[in-house]
């Protein structure tokens, strides 16, 4: 413990690692911007809704996936509740991709990488590509004729680019682990980074709006 003289101004450089981490976290996003209750006027458009719709669909994807993991393959193939959760997982993924692509179109046409937002754009790109890989391994993990068909069709393409040696789409156990552990972990981190960067730099204003006056 360190005695603190309350008459003295706070020390500029914290000496303990916890204080330094706390300072660093507090400076990640501007004050009040982590969970804002006011937004710029230009955000009064439906096109700005698709980012959070994508996040909402992702939450349903993850939650239904967790329930599927609890029940296992036979459960989602033979029981009524398993069929329902399986369908919920599939259709939330379909909506996730539909929302994400409309979000991508909107951000592309408004050049959302403007104003020092290149890293926000790139984390979105990586999240999109990672989502495709996660969905692909999900289709390979269905344990039905469709997954067998997809794996045998995909193996030739992946072997032709030399990744089949360590990413074997005809190994269901490997694909299931990529789908439920590795890719969701990576995707989760990237999505969190993306959202933090959005809050850090703010929502990009329309092209004809002044950055300073629009926010």
């Amino acid at each position, binding site marked *: 413990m360190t005695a603190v003289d309350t008459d003295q101004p706070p020390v500029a450089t914290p000496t303990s690692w916890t204080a330094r981490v706390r300072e660093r976290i507090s400076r990640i996003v501007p004050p009040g911007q982590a969970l804002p209750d*006011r*937004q*710029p*006027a230009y955000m*009064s*458009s*439906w*096109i700005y*809704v*698709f980012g959070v719709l994508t996040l909402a669909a992702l939450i349903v994807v993850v939650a239904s996936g967790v329930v599927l993991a609890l029940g296992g393959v036979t459960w989602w193939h033979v029981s009524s509740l398993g069929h329902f959760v399986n369908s919920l997982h599939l259709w939330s993924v379909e909506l996730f991709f*539909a929302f994400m*692509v*409309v979000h991508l*179109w*909107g951000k592309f046409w408004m050049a959302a990488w403007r104003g020092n937002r290149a890293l926000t754009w790139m984390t979105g790109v990586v999240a999109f590509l990672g989502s495709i890989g996660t969905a692909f391994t999900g289709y390979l993990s269905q344990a039905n004729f469709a997954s067998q068909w997809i794996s045998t069709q995909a193996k030739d393409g992946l072997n032709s680019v030399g990744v089949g040696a360590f990413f074997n789409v005809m190994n269901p156990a490997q694909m299931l682990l990529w789908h439920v552990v590795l890719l969701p972990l990576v995707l989760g981190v990237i999505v969190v980074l993306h959202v933090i960067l959005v809050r850090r730099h703010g929502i990009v204003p329309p092209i004809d709006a002044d950055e300073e006056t629009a926010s």
Partner: protein
Amino acid sequence: MRPMILLADGAGRYVSSGVIQISVTNLVIIAAMILVFVLALVLPFPGRHHQDSSDRDS
């Protein structure tokens, strides 16, 4: 017992134009997404008129 024959080529309808071949289902989905995108741009957002008339965000 009669043998069951699966004809995969009878499943679904496809639209072909040169090297491009796409199922009608996928084409409809893409058209619907474009429609949603356009509607998101042109439909008024609830409360927009009210916010524009105030100086809340200025």
